[in-house]
């Protein structure tokens, strides 16, 4: 499974949204109306799925899907 697919699955499951609602280059707060507690939930799930640690300032509700993919891929490369 690609990193992108894994992130998409987490967003869909955590936020109960439809796949087509997730936009590659839009802030999650704009495309999905994500609030800060939902974002904490997304971050915790990403950490578990990819076995990484994320600083809560690295990913915020103002991040896009592309931002998250780039960050997680870089974490996995350096791990």
């Amino acid at each position: 499974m690609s990193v992108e697919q894994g992130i998409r699955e987490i967003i869909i499951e955590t936020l109960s949204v439809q796949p087509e609602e997730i936009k590659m280059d839009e802030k999650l707060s704009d495309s999905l109306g994500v609030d800060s507690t939902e974002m904490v939930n997304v971050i915790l799930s990403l950490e578990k799925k990819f076995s990484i640690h994320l600083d809560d300032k690295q990913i915020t509700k103002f991040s896009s899907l592309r931002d998250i993919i780039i960050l997680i891929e870089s974490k996995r490369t350096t791990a």
Partner: protein
Amino acid sequence: MKDIVITGMGVVAPPGIGTADFWHHIQEGRSFVSPITRFDSSLYPSRIAGQVNGLESYKNGFSARLLKKLDLFSHMALVTSDLTLKDAKIDLRNFNLHRTGIFMGNTLGGWLFAETELRDLYLEGREGVSPYMASAWFPAAPQGQISIFYGIKGYSKTVVADRAGSLMAIAYGARTLERGKLDLVLAGGTEAPVTPYALLCCNTYDFLSRKNDTPENAYAPFDKNRDGLVVAEGAGILTLERLNDAQRRNAPLYARICSFYTNCDGYDRVAFEPDGTCLAVAIEEALKEAGFEKDGIDYICADGAATASGDISETRAIKKVFGRRAKEIPVSAPKSMFGNMLGAQGSVDVITTVLSMMYGTICPTINYKNPDPECDLDYVPNKAQNKDIKRALVISRGRGGINAVMALERFSNGHMTKKAFGGGTLCQLSKA
């Protein structure tokens, strides 16, 4: 209190969701108390309750994404708010949301959500706890969720006062309207005590019935063989407006809230003051503020704690105030049919009383079989009675000796007609 009127009513309760379903069932005089099925309660001394069915089928904009952040008590409050606004024929786009407020009563908070998160805290550590816990568990969460869902921004409060909480919340909402700080109030209460920890706390306090083998007969206020109340989950919410505002928008006019009084026994942590002196003072003060003659009270909706301390002191208080006439006033505890919703019960009692006024029918105290010489009023035993009710009192009491009394007056001169009440939810029913 002058010219504060109830213009909408919503209820989620074991007998039904919405006032029509609720009223249809509670006039039958049968029990909605059953063994607890949500979790294994086999080791609890009391393991019966009034439980709500069918809540998940009420959607109306409450998405899965929203509901996963809520405890049951907030979910019930949202559904009940929606029912109430519809019943009141209110489109909030026509109201100034900065002058719309929410007043809610609650006792326990959101333990169904909190318990699993606390378990995860100890098993998995801090990262095992859902971030939604932060806004799901505390007693003011329903107020917050209602305000967010509808964009309501006005002066609001949550009242924690044990079983008197929602009656107080309605009163504070009404007084805030009276002072002109708001134009519209959503007021009531919500409670979800059927969870392992919440039920344990109620059991520890030792006020619950242990008649687990006969749940339908368990909650027996004023009966000599009573052994405590039965808890129930549910919510009741009203819309309140000033009369001239309500008339201007041609709103349903259910009843006036005429007065409210509250005081404390100052006596004991568990038992009520035995002579009912403080409750009698609260009733007298409520009558005085309302300007009601004692002869003019047609019905009293009782607290009906189903403990010796509660029932006897409540009976003595009523006798102290009304003297010889006390025995002529019907005093019932319809909650004996479905259980006591603790912080939500006062608002559901107000709704039951208003429905009784509208339909000219008093709902009974069920499970009344063995008269107690200390409790010798007309408790409307086991079967509904027809009665014209113009003025009524609602009594709510809480642990630690909290007494609360509200006086209500039917708005119209006769019983409800479909035309007069404008075709709201309730008006789908014909008179029983």
